[in-house]
């Protein structure tokens, strides 16, 4: 009986303690939500609402002046079927993204390997190579548009000074070279940033691994392939991710300043086409639809890339 009473008292005590804990937990939860509420409000106002509103607009015909008209999937169908400029812009965007991803990472890694050596004045070189990263796109775009200018530009003057007048070419004025000329500038601007990423990775690799490899008679190429590259894998993941993402969704400024999408749409990318559609032609709904198509493409690509990379990483282990 006494034992039973004790058990009951224990149960009641536990219940009370549980209630107290529950009340405390609820209080903690409320306090937690209250603390994150301002951040959530900001998130809702500046991120969620525009995203959802953009999606809503993409199903409408709207010029920013008149009332919206619901058109269902028509904007999306138009992008796939009848807008040849969008098709060209999508191709250019893909080419641009792939090219700059390769360029930035290859050059970034090469520069990192060069400046990782302990030589006198290396800090100066590291700083100098990073300077383009700090320049704004407007400055870089205008600067390089002048450098490329076949009549007054630095490239033309240099070639003429070397007696290579025949090589002077309107790089930004030709459909076959304009996109690549912009790609080169984008790579030039950001290679220093990727260099810093890779440099951090290189400095984290233990020196004794290289020493052991040298003792084993490994060649420089073998050391690079078997030690440097595998150990840089996490950095490479980030570096490629940033470049690829930027190639798709941060290509507007430079192209707009250097070529405006021309000549004859040869450097048109989805973002420049979106802006033209929205603010020159007043097709805000169609522009939003293109934005969502770009978003979905990038999301799928990044997902595939992340899964492939991680799978490769596991296999490597």
């Amino acid at each position: 009986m006494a034992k039973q009473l004790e058990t009951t008292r224990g149960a009641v005590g536990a219940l009370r303690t549980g209630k107290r804990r529950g009340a405390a937990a609820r209080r903690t939860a409320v306090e937690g939500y209250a603390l994150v509420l301002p951040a959530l409000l900001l998130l809702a106002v500046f991120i969620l609402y525009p995203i959802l509103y953009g999606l809503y607009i993409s199903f409408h015909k709207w010029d920013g002046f008149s009332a919206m008209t619901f058109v269902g999937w028509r904007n999306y169908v138009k992008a796939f079927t009848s807008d040849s400029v969008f098709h060209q812009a999508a191709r250019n965007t893909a080419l641009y993204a792939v090219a700059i991803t390769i360029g930035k990472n290859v050059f970034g890694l090469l520069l990192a390997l060069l400046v990782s050596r302990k030589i006198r004045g290396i800090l100066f070189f590291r700083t100098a190579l990073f300077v383009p990263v700090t320049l704004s796109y407007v400055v870089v775009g205008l600067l390089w548009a002048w450098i490329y200018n076949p009549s007054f530009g630095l490239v033309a003057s240099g070639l003429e000074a070397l007696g290579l007048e025949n090589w002077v070419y309107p790089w930004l004025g030709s459909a076959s070279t304009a996109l690549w000329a912009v790609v080169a500038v984008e790579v030039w601007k950001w290679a220093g940033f990727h260099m810093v990423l890779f440099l951090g990775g290189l400095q984290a690799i233990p020196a004794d691994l290289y020493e052991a490899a040298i003792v084993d008679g490994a060649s420089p190429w073998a050391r690079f392939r078997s030690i440097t590259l595998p150990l840089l894998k996490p950095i490479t993941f980030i570096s490629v991710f940033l470049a690829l993402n930027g190639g798709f969704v941060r290509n507007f400024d430079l192209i707009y300043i250097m070529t405006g999408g021309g000549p004859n749409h040869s450097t048109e990318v989805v973002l420049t086409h979106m802006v033209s559609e929205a603010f020159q032609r007043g097709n805000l709904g169609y522009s939003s639809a293109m934005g969502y198509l770009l978003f979905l493409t990038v999301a799928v690509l990044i997902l595939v890339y992340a899964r492939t990379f991680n799978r490769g990483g596991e296999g490597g282990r």
Partner: protein
Amino acid sequence: MLEERNGASQTAGGKKAVRKKAALAAMVTAAMLLLAACGGNNDGTSGGNSDDAGGANNTAGNGESTAVEGSVELKVFGGSASDALGARADNQKEIEQTVLDGFIAENPEVKSVTWDAQGPVADQVTRMMTANLGGEYMDMVACAANPTNTTFIDKGILKDITADIEPFKDRIDPSALNAYSRDGKVYGIPIATMSTSTFYYNKDLFAELGLEVPTTYEELLTVSEAVKEAGHMAVIHQGKNAWYWPMWLMETLAQTSGDSVGKTESNLSGETKFTDEADVEALRLVGQFVEDGIIDGNTLTVDTDGMRSAFASQQAAMYYGGTWELSWLQDNVTDFEYGAFEFPKLPDTIGDPKHGGGPDYGICVSSNIKDDNQEYAIKLMEYLTRPEVADQYLGIYKPIFASIEGVTLSDEPIAQDLQGHYDNTVRFLDWIWPVEVKDAIASSLQGIAGGMVSAEEAAATIQAAYDQLVADGYVYGE
């Protein structure tokens, strides 16, 4: 027992998680509702609450104002800084203040006139769109003729003022007024300088090389070859800017069709096509200027600054622009004398040379204007068209032409050259083309100049852009 407790605990945990999610969702929804409630009116009616502007004024049955002194506040909205009164003057603010003070002094019912014109010309439609979305109230709209024709009239944001301006419309150049009219209805009055298109040339260089001003394509070709032999570029053109190429087409189409405005309107009505022989030939002729080396081959890399620099530094002997270039030339070209000549006559064409032009800026009445303010908006228009008032904000430029009769014009030699061109000026075609067609023309011309597409392919692209518009419901003139 332990499993049961664990199960109960998991159920409780699950409920807790659901409650957390529900609370989170409720908070996000509340935030979004709050935002939606704070948001503007996007139903296209814009203009904000008409009760919030102006003041206690009424109009008597006989139409005479009974507004209380100092009760009317007029708001003028300009799409860009160029829409300000005396926009190009160094003392613009001072000029604007003097003009508006004069108006207020004559109309004691008016307390103030706010003239809000900011931003670059390229963003004028965007700025108007933003103001519209934000529900910004405006009594009047100061705007260039281009967006007025291509956007603002179509979007219904301007009021028909045909009858209102009848008492003073004789003060306005009829062709300039026509630029703010559609189907016999007037939507605004031009209060600006007037533009025409022209070639500028280096007079000293021409004299040095013994060259005469060309009047035909063949003569221009001969002149260009002589200039190039002397180590200069012939014609420099800002071909990087796609939007500038249609200027050339306006000239060539005028000559291949005999009536560029009529042909354009006919194409847009669907009676004729952009692929007709006259249109294709006009496109081809633009390309021929590049092919024959009259326009420098690197044109697609040249922007406005590059074009002007090449001319000012005497690297190029000629460039094609318009009267809007004159103030830049006056400020920056001091080492040599320059002149202007008309676009030359093209071979085997039926029409005479005609140049795109028209008034640069004007002022309109917003379709959302409060009834009580409309009388004063029209009074302001009347005031601005008085020659002595127009001289205050237009005469300061010593313009070559002005949309208001009686404004003091320039008597410089180059101005006299250009005044002779004005008789051959027709409406800019990009005030007639829908934006989609204009963009197709601009990029196609870039393609022709760069040898990327043929004139026939370009014409097909332009026609396709028009067909797409029609499929989307476009009807010219509606």
